[in-house]
């Protein structure tokens, strides 16, 4: 086992860096930790239903710049918005279109200017986490985005993540939403429709200051066999609002870790998810709402539609720490299996150390409602059309939570 996991991380050793300073110290520390960690297998509690055994068999090459034209992937509906473009982890600087108020730097430039000091790795921890350690040990791509105090970004920022070919790469992002700012970030994950497997580890550390509102979206729709291990680590301060809506439609194996550390009072946190997958797509959502201070509110709704041979995993944790009195925390996971060969493993977890809180959670899994199907067919609606109506109705509850009309329209057309 140690042999194979060692092989896997060796893909990235050419990225070894001789810089010095905060980030380099972090890399060294992560590298040392990585030596003692093995690639997670299904014996690890957090990876029980997401086997990575095929990962080490894939002939990934470390990503190199390509001549792919990212314009072929741009979404018409979203063309009026701001734009950041990555191809296989490489920032396409000539495609960047951002308002003058924000500070935006490539990872390497941000490191050079010391912008990452004391931020990078401060909330995405490397201890006992193979992919966090791997990503940190070799990180050199990604971005740094700072939305200054009290600025309101007039249009959403679209971040394109385009994958092409059988490459492996790591990406690392820092987002600073300063006091009182307002912004929306749309992450689009797209791939060309070749049969190559690729591998991506992406970690975003998002810091949301007092009174800041950040509305985030991830649209995962990679038409290939990509392995994507994605960690979004969020820290929220008092009176801040954070929303993440994750729409997962295609890909090979996707693992999303969404961890929100609610470090302030009167925060609002929304986590919405819709997975609608088929083929052999494997989609694993691990979420955490960690209430550490009193008087905050979190609401999580993940819905899944699993067709053909697809697999879904949902593991949602709510922690309410002893100090977090008057917390309101809600979590729902609802799944529909559309095929006898599809599976879903769901595990909602609620751990409460405070005594004056309102919390609820629940999970349901079923098939499409046969009685509803018959009712519709008895009204003349064909079985195919009836299924479509029911699926859209099921998905609609999440789609209605997308606050950007152009994006809602785009996603509706994908379903």
């Amino acid at each position: 086992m140690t042999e194979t996991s060692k092989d896997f991380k060796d893909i990235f050793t050419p990225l070894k860096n001789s810089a010095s300073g905060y980030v380099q110290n972090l890399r060294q520390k992560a590298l040392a930790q990585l030596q003692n960690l093995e690639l997670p297998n299904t014996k690890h509690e957090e990876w029980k239903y997401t086997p990575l055994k095929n990962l080490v068999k894939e002939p990934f090459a470390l990503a190199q710049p390509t001549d792919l034209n990212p314009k072929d992937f741009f979404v018409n509906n979203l063309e009026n918005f701001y734009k950041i473009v990555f191809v296989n982890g490489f920032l396409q600087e000539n495609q960047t279109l951002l308002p003058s108020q924000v500070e935006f730097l490539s990872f390497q430039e941000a490191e050079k200017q010391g912008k990452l000091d004391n931020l990078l790795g401060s909330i995405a921890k490397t201890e006992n986490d193979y992919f966090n350690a791997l990503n940190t040990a070799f990180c050199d791509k990604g971005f740094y985005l700072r939305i200054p105090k009290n600025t309101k970004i007039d249009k959403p920022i679209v971040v394109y993540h385009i994958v092409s070919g059988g490459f492996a790469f790591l990406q690392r992002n820092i987002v600073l939403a300063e006091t009182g700012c307002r912004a929306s970030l749309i992450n689009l994950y797209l791939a060309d429709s070749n049969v190559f497997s690729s591998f991506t580890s992406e970690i975003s550390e998002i810091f949301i200051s007092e009174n800041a509102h950040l509305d985030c979206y991830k649209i995962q729709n990679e038409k290939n066999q990509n392995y994507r291990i994605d960690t979004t680590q969020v820290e929220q301060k008092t009176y801040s609002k954070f929303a993440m809506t994750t729409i997962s439609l295609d890909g090979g194996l996707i693992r999303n870790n969404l961890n929100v550390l609610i470090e302030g009072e009167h925060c609002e946190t929304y986590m919405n998810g819709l997975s609608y997958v088929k083929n052999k797509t494997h989609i694993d959502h691990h979420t955490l709402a960690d209430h550490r201070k009193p008087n905050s509110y979190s609401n999580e709704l993940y819905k899944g539609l699993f067709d053909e041979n697809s697999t879904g995993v949902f593991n949602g944790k709510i922690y309410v720490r002893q100090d977090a009195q008057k917390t309101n925390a809600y979590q729902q996971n609802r799944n529909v299996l559309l095929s006898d060969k599809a599976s879903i493993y769901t595990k909602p977890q609620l751990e409460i150390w405070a005594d004056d809180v309102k919390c609820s959670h629940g999970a349901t899994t079923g098939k499409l409602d046969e009685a509803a199907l018959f009712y519709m067919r008895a009204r003349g609606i064909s079985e195919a059309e009836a299924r479509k109506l029911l699926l859209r109705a099921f998905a609609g509850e999440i789609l209605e939570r997308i606050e950007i009309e152009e994006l809602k329209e785009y996603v509706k057309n994908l379903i």
Partner: protein
Amino acid sequence: MLSIENLHAQIDNKAILKGINLEIKAGEIHAIMGPNGSGKSTLASVLAGKEQYEVTEGSITFLGKNLLELAPEERAGEGIFLAFQHPIEIPGVTTTNFLKTALNEIRKYQGLDPLDAVQFLKLLKEKAKILQIDESLMKRSLNEGFSGGEKKRNEIFQMAMLEPRLAILDETDSGLDIDALRIVAEGVNKLKNSQNAFLIITHFQRILDYIQPDFVHVLYDGKIIKSGGKELALELEEKGYDWVKAEAVA
């Protein structure tokens, strides 16, 4: 219009219908009465094409076609409508969207052009007025959170929209208060014409005070054991079912 001959049907290997014969012509209203468990709702489900029921013997011919060979949606296309005893709640699908889809699917089946949004809304308003349906219900998810009475009225409203040749009302009257019952009955009376027919399945004679049936049939243990005119319903109301059962045995 509808001809049922020696119909036998079962569910989970349990025989429910044991030889039904029934003939319905255009312009007629038939009522089927009978005690609980006699097979009334099974007959309605078999006519609509519910797949859990297995027809083991007999035939159903509707407007010259073998109904048993048709899928539920094809039956609807041919003009069969079942008002459900327990209408289904469908969250996320508005009544308007549901009805527009249904109406245009039926029109497609019949080789007609679909109605556009304007034509559809005009029809919707017209029919809502006839049935005194609050139009705000149309924008809500189908039957979701509707009261029992609202659900039943919505069934009759759907019937009005889809204009079937044969409407089967499966205990539409049960659970309705007298005002709702009157509205439902008036709806049926307004929709009745020489080209369509109604099959009203009921426990109680009450609805037949408002809808005058041409024929009343008594269903018992999977068979029609007595048929007569509307006076039979009154007799059943007065004397119960035991005398019919006794007569049938004798």
